[in-house]
């Protein structure tokens, strides 16, 4: 019986797998790591007194469905090194724990290998950012993930100290020629806005400021407005700081006030850096292997219609997307595969 191969066990791949498996298709997930979940596994819930709509709950729902589905098989620690065959009957050469295998009879292949965080790139951490009081958003995430909601006034996010002030700096690895990303990553504003609210929830006294270039929408169903920011007591400074000065007591950010043109400075205990969404380097391999096109920034685009070739792209291999956007994109890919399948079955 023919199968659908899904490359990548992150949220994009899992969503497509669940949708296709529920319709009775046999699905093979090929995952390079030892666990499924991908990037979302490292995220933490960003609820405060209320839900901030970070969408993580959707992920758990999907992971539950994957583990209970009888139609889904997962190959862990597996990479792909060969692709052959013809439309509707492909074969993939794979390598699991050093052993070579091939899986054939693949009707469709979905590439869902996601993105790379800016901080994971070699060029990602400039010298100025090396300080334990300067965190990437994903490092703060670790603390948020491990937080405990104790109602007795203890510190709840374990940073090793209790910051009195936090500064978020947006647009790292985005909108910058030198950083090879002229594009806006679109998700970091919403992401850090939620982070800021979580910090405010656990440290009500903390002073929060955000350096921004342009505030983007916060996601599918949440827009961020200046009044939201003001309501949550998050200050905004419209520029990128020019210099970070470090001393034993605190960090001092120097920036140019856009109204007055004067150089001003702000002292803080903690700096959180947003991280741009970058293309996964494996995209180049996919482009070669599956005859796909790579855009200026390394994201994938299909050359021919995906229905024609049977090679589909799902989620952030195509460009920055948030969790909800990735899930709906992958669902849509699954729907399209089902449609294509029904058409070919009915001989149309």
């Amino acid at each position, binding site marked *: 019986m023919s199968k659908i191969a899904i490359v990548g066990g992150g949220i994009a791949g899992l969503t497509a797998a669940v949708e296709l498996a*529920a*319709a*009775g298709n046999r699905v093979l997930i090929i995952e390079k790591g030892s666990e499924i979940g991908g990037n979302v596994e490292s*995220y*933490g*819930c960003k*609820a405060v007194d*209320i*839900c901030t*709509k970070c*969408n*993580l*709950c*959707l992920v*758990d*729902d999907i992971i*539950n469905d994957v583990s209970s589905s009888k139609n889904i098989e997962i190959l862990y620690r597996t990479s792909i090194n060969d692709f052959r065959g013809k439309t509707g009957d492909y074969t993939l050469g794979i390598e699991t724990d050093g052993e070579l295998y091939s899986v054939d009879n693949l009707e469709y292949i979905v590439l869902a290998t996601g993105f790379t965080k800016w901080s994971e790139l070699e060029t990602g951490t400039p010298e100025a950012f090396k300080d334990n009081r300067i965190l990437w958003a994903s490092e703060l995430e670790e603390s948020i*993930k*491990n*937080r*405990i*909601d*104790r109602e007795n006034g203890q510190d709840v996010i374990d940073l090793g100290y209790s910051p009195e002030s936090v500064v978020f700096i947006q647009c790292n690895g985005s*909108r910058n020629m030198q950083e090879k990303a*002229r*594009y*806006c990553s*679109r998700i970091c504003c919403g992401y850090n806005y939620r982070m800021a609210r979580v910090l405010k929830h656990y440290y009500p006294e903390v002073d929060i400021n955000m350096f*921004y270039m*342009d*505030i*983007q*929408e916060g*996601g*599918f*169903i*949440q*827009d*961020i*407005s*200046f*009044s939201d920011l003001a309501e949550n007591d998050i200050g905004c400074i*419209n520029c990128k700081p020019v210099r970070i000065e470090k001393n034993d007591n605190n960090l001092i950010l120097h920036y140019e006030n*856009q*109204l*007055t*043109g*004067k150089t001003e400075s702000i002292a803080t205990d903690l700096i959180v850096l947003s991280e741009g969404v970058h293309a996964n380097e494996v995209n180049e391999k996919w482009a070669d292997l599956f005859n796909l096109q790579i855009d200026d920034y390394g994201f994938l685009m299909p050359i021919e219609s995906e229905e024609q070739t049977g090679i589909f792209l799902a989620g952030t291999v195509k460009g920055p997307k948030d969790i*909800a*956007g990735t*899930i*709906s*994109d992958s*669902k*849509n890919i699954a*729907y*399209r595969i*089902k*449609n294509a399948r*029904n058409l070919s079955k009915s001989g149309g």
Partner: protein
Amino acid sequence: MYDVVFIGNDIKSPSLSSFQINPAQLLTARGEIGNFYLKYKDDKEDLNEVETRAVVINIEAEKETPATGLLSFERNLDNILRNTRKDYIVIVQDYNELAPAIVSKEGLEKAIDIRKRFPDLNVYYFYRSMRFIDNNDRRFEQARKMGIVFLKYERDNLKITDSRELIYNREDINLKLKDNIIMAPELKPAAVLDRVARIFNLRKSEKGYLQPENIYLQPTLSGKRGVYVLGGARGTTGYSNLTDEVEFTLNEIRNKTIDPVIEQERVVDDQKCILCYNCYRICNHGAIERDEVLDAMKINYLACQGCNACIARCPAGAISIAGSEDKKQSKGLKVMMCENSAQPAWKKAGNKVRTALNLEIEEIPCACSIKKEDLFNHLSNPENRLLILGCFEESCKHINGDKRGQQVVDEVKATLEKLDLNPERLTFKRLSPRMTADLEYFLSAWKEDSL
């Protein structure tokens, strides 16, 4: 029978049969996903009815121009620009509040168009945040290269006076510009949305759009299964990913209604059903309909999401899950966990913690499925305690199941109070599936407190 009826703008799709109804002419809607019946008046005032599997509400948001008397995006400006004695044209975005990304896109297009056709005019573009969708990043770059002057402002340094003069002050620039000021629109829900919401019995968002803010409704679900909301009917961000959302919606309709995968779990016993319509009212997904043949209520399996709210609220005990057994009487400390939040968090807690806590756990599909009588049953023994763990409202899979659960708990607590039966023994808490650490801490504190 159509595959889809569009209320508002029509979207043609080769694989779906469709029909269009003007929202002002729509009169009533009944039925559920798979079988909606819509009554409307046609242009000749004749009454008609159509049958459809799904409904898409696609109504543009209303555009309001802030600061009246100024030019708007819609207006054809050619005459004004051809005859103007000024050497500039001004576009102002984000005047009262941040504009959604679609407005940034339209603003940039407008500016580029004016610059191309009227190269002698300086174009000043005032904005607070440029928002990026589609190719806006490139458009923004192109516009700057073309010599459009982008000036960022904050609340304090840009003002439009009653005499329609724009005053802008920055350290190096002081501008006073009168006339030729185009204001980017603010998006507001269309007035007709109220009427459409009433007809379909839809809950609205705080801002008045037809999609309540619930993460499970993304991208275009409305809360009532089979009814989708697009673009300006969905919210101000409804335009940002419109192409993708249209494709998703049409493909979902095709996959969920034409060739669906159906799991039949819940059944109504027609001999017990008293047609009280409680289940119909309580269902958040529009999954209950009347079976005219059996003269009883029945479940629409396309719409049913399995929250069990109908089972909990049926006074006749007519609804049940096939193959389920009667619950046994529980003792001591008991925790009811929602399968969408606390239960997955509990699973992740690890065997060691679970064994150490040694609690009686009941998995429930939603906090809305708790029954008063079950709660009283357990709490009738003064030694017993009960903890109910549900979701946050915006992440409740059953739209407002957590609120319904909370209502039941509040009522039971009030009764216990009256009977002097210590209401503190009953607790309700909201969690997300990622709050494993919170859950562990809370459960051990609750257990300690109870003993």
